[in-house]
């Protein structure tokens, strides 16, 4: 299962090779051409097919990178200091198992047992700069021989599907989007399609920036695994998205305001095909579309996402039905772009 392979693969921003290799193997038979650009984006190309073709260049983007850690220092006792890559809440780090570097050296982000906590420490939030990763090294030298400064660490979470129809794993933001894109590439479309698996989204939409400049599409879609906070709330306020209620369509987030025609196209497609959908709560988060839409003279863009609980943590959850409905919505909506005039 591609989703499982991609979720388990390790690819912190700037180090996406493992994910990219899996994707190349998966999609190379589905596309006419592919290349890896200078920053590491995987840019695939499918020629327009069918009788009524449109002179339209469409770009679909999903990012390969995930949030993680970067080793920056060996302590004298053999513990490792680290920095965060991408947005991670310090509170989710403590007591987690991580895998470091190519050799997947296991380590634990250690924490003081409750027996030793002073009364006032129980209320404190520990920041990541006070944490260390313990790989069991006896001293600095032993740690240095196992792990290098600049090695990346990822959470050691194994993907699994649950009986409820949910799936759990790490990095579903945005391996969910990568899997949706790989599925979309199985079919033919009446326009030139560029399926782009981007790098370094989590550190500033950097891969999408150069990919969009090179591809120069007429229309762009960002495919995502997005925030879902649907636990019960005291007040009658909106969750960002709800699990199991279909793909989330972005109208506006912190990075861009979606093209209204594309939003309408998605909503109409969903309604006509009875595919459930939801509007993502406006102004939360950002995606590759934030860079793509202001590339060159501007590119009408929209984002479609699989609602995912607990993103940017060691383990997130999503509903496989939402994943399937996202693929269904996109594959039904894309052919309708034929009539899209800019």
């Amino acid at each position: 299962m591609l989703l499982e392979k991609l979720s388990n693969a390790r690819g912190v921003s700037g180090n996406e090779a493992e994910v990219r290799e899996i994707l190349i193997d998966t999609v190379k038979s589905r596309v006419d051409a592919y290349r890896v650009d200078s920053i590491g984006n995987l840019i695939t190309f499918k020629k327009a097919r069918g009788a009524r073709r449109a002179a339209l260049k469409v770009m679909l983007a999903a990012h390969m990178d995930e949030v993680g850690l970067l080793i920056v220092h060996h302590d004298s006792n053999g513990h490792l200091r680290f920095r965060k890559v991408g947005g991670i809440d310090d509170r989710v780090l403590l007591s987690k198992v991580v895998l470091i570097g190519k050799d997947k050296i296991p380590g634990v982000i250690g924490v003081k047992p409750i027996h030793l906590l002073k009364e006032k420490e129980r209320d404190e939030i520990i920041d990541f700069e006070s944490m260390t990763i313990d790989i069991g090294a006896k001293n600095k030298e032993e740690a240095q021989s196992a792990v290098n400064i600049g090695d990346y660490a990822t959470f050691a979470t194994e993907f699994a599907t649950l009986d409820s129809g949910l799936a759990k794993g790490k990095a579903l933001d945005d391996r969910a989007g990568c899997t949706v894109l790989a599925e979309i590439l199985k079919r033919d479309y009446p326009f030139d399609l560029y399926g782009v698996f981007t790098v370094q989204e989590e550190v500033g939409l950097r891969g999408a920036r150069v990919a969009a400049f090179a591809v120069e599409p007429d229309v762009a879609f960002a495919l995502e695994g997005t925030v879902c906070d649907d636990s019960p709330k005291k007040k009658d306020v909106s969750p960002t998205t709800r699990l199991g209620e279909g793909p989330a369509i972005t109208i506006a987030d912190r990075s861009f305001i979606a093209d209204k025609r594309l939003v309408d196209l998605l909503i109409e497609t969903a309604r006509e095909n009875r595919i459930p959908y939801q509007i993502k709560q406006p102004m939360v988060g950002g995606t590759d579309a934030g860079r793509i839409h202001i590339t060159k003279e501007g590119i009408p863009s929209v984002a479609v996402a699989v609602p995912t609980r607990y993103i940017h943590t060691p383990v997130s959850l999503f509903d496989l039905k939402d994943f399937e409905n996202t693929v269904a919505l996109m594959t039904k909506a894309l052919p309708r772009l034929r009539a899209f005039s800019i």
Partner: protein
Amino acid sequence: MATAKKATHFPNFDRGGEPAERMHPLKELTKRLTETYGPPGNEQLIREVIREEIKSIADEIRVDALGNLIARKKGSGGAVPRKKVMLAAHMDEIGVIVTHVDEKGFLRFATLGGVRPITLFGHRCRFANGVSGIFGREKKDAKPTDVEMDKLFIDVGAREAKDVPVGVGDAAGFWRDFADLGDRMIAKAMDDRIGCVALIEVMRQLKKSPHDLYFVYTVQEEVGLRGATTSAYGVQPDLALAVDVTDTGDTPESTPMAVALGKGPAIKVKDSGMLAHPAVKELLVNVAQEAKIPYQLEVLVGGTTDAMAMQTTREGVPAGVVSIPTRYVHTPSEMVDMNDVQNAVKLLVNVLSNPIKLD
């Protein structure tokens, strides 16, 4: 330069059957533009109003992928060195966007651009479909002075959720009508409809220019200069000028700033996003001095304009800003002095009528 009408205290007041004085055309235009709806990403209505004003005086008009309105006035040629000049004023105004409709029909919202909670409570907003609402606040557990964004809501007068005539993702702008105070005017969205007014007026007054001119009415400035980013890339100018509002330091106990209402357009030296190109600043200063147009120099501590995006497009473009001094920026009632607007127009017309040399 047209002279401003003598200030009267209540020029629109019904004075017992006398025929109402016709408003100055520039004020009429300001009223029309400021009272039009147009939060970021929702510029379709204001774009059509501006298009209507300029369609007979532009050589070409196009709307780009993001919605920028790009009007070209071809140069008459001849002058050396001839320049391709981009002038930008943004059409969008700050606003809010609905994030949730609760069971009772109250709306929660997020902001589009720099909206501060203190400017909202008790004020009105209006949606694209004309629906008006008022910003209310949760009072329980709050001091009378507390105004926090996540404790504010919009009330559109609905009895329950199903009666609400707008939905999640719909945007609203402030709703206030234009007020004519004589020399001074108050309106919502002076930022930056007054810049649009100035550009329209420059297009009208400019008889002849050796330069190829692109008047760009941009979108989404308030959420990150996004329209200027794409339109500057498309126009690829040799010189870029933004016309936008700037703060003043002339109100009681204000943050010190050497810009005042009525003392002329402000020529930007620096703001928090850019340093004006020294040669562009010099050009504006020299033309103002030669034409005896009052001007002020502007150093703005917080905020920036489309010029920041234009300056860094492609290989870089010499850029500057002509600012209209404005009190109460980013509130529902922003005040400008019409003399400053007219002097800004005069300055730009003088700059564009003559050969431009940037050293």
